[in-house]
């Protein structure tokens, strides 16, 4: 028997590997798999962080210039938004709506990409030690990125909008028409379940609706690129262009479930800072300006 096994060892090794693979597939996402992933993330973490260091210091000058320009634009936008917020709060109070809380934000750096035809997943450098949990949404400066699907001590995996398992309840910001945003290869990002005749037009911005409780309301998702009504279909085919630039995504912010009590105070401080920045940059601030 041992002689026979040795003679056909390549088939024995193949059989063992195939059986082991099938068993692993059947195990799915068990505790043992989670533990193994945790070990891998701890082993890889220092190397992934080191590789990211190079990116951080290359192009700093250009980034600095871009950020200065952005500050000027943001100061201007901020002054307009302050007026809009004050107006919004006044109207909410008049209508008896409850005050919205601010979620705590955990900034995270993208340190790994798992991209294939079955979707894009991102590994970020914040984990359970920073308060990140499965289901927390992740955003970039442009808009919604995805949600956390796996958490290790120092790292987490996000499933992005460009994966079939990330579906978001959404609405058209202009017409308030609701639908579900989802991704499918090769069609890309779509707004689904929108009835024929519903008011959705090319160029409309699609934002999260807040239904379902995972994603907060109002996060930008994408812009309608193409609307098609096919004969015999019950729903419109609406293709979206995601607002987040997934090819260049370097940082994200994970919105945790906790409501941040300090966020209001921080916003007040930020307002003060932005007013000072506006003064120093010579940009008109909202203090002495009428709402446009």
């Amino acid at each position, binding site marked *: 028997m041992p002689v026979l096994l040795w003679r056909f060892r390549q088939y024995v090794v193949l059989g063992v590997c195939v059986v*082991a693979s*099938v068993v692993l*597939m059947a195990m799915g996402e068990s505790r043992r798999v989670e533990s193994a992933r945790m070990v891998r993330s701890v082993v890889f973490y220092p190397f992934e962080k080191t590789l990211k260091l190079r990116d951080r210091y290359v192009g700093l000058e250009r980034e600095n210039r871009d950020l200065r320009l952005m500050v000027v634009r943001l100061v201007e936008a901020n002054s307009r938004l302050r007026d809009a917020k004050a107006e919004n709060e006044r109207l909410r109070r008049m209508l008896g709506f409850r005050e919205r809380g601010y979620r705590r934000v955990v900034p995270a750096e993208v340190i790994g*990409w798992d991209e294939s035809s079955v979707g894009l997943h991102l590994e970020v450098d914040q984990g359970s030690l920073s308060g990140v949990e499965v289901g927390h949404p992740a955003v970039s400066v442009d808009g919604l990125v995805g949600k956390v699907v796996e958490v290790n001590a120092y790292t987490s995996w996000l499933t992005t909008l460009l994966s079939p398992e990330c579906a978001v309840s959404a609405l058209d910001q202009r017409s308030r028409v609701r639908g579900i945003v989802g991704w499918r290869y090769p069609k890309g990002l779509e707004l689904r379940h929108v009835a024929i005749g519903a008011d959705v037009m090319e160029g409309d911005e699609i934002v999260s609706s807040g239904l379902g409780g995972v994603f907060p309301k109002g996060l930008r998702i994408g812009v309608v690129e193409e609307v098609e009504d096919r004969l015999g279909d019950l729903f419109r085919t609406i293709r979206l262009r995601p607002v987040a630039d997934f090819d260049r995504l370097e940082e994200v912010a994970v919105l945790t479930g906790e409501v941040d009590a300090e966020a209001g105070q921080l916003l007040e401080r930020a307002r003060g800072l932005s007013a000072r920045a506006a003064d120093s940059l010579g940009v008109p601030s909202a203090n002495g300006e009428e709402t446009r």
Partner: protein
Amino acid sequence: MERRRAGSWKGRLAAILRLVALVLFVLLVQLTLIRRIRILGVGPDLALILVVYSALWAGAVGGTAAGFLVGLLQGLSSPVHFGSHALAKSIVGFGVGTLSPHVVRESLATQAAIIVGTQLVHDLIFLPLTMDTVGSAFVVLGAQTLPGAAYSAAVGCLIYRVFLKPIGMDLTSHGTSLL
């Protein structure tokens, strides 16, 4: 036919350790840096290239083991589809390792053809296991696998000439069998 002769235990252990280190390094590069060299959304599959060269060098047993190890670690480096990478890569590792003694392994054209064929077979196993419908798996096969395979072949041949051959993984000589 297993061409490689079993070496000493020290040699086998060194070969296994070298393989594990190489697998970890390749996966790290695949996770972090490979996005920078993508062309029109298509990039090379370094993990598959490693399996192909391991199988060409170490035969069916080494190729299957390398495929399983690479697939296992690739599954751990992704939040979805655990086990399917290991299954697909074990099978292609075995296939290439079995084919290895019967082809002119040192020819770059042969290596390129093997990488393209391996990528196709790999995705024929992997995609139906991971995608919603078989139809979409075939769409991916045409739109991503074929250009990806060509890219992987070019990168694989370059890695062999620039990196693997100088460090002694020369396909004109016999490799070290793991068993």
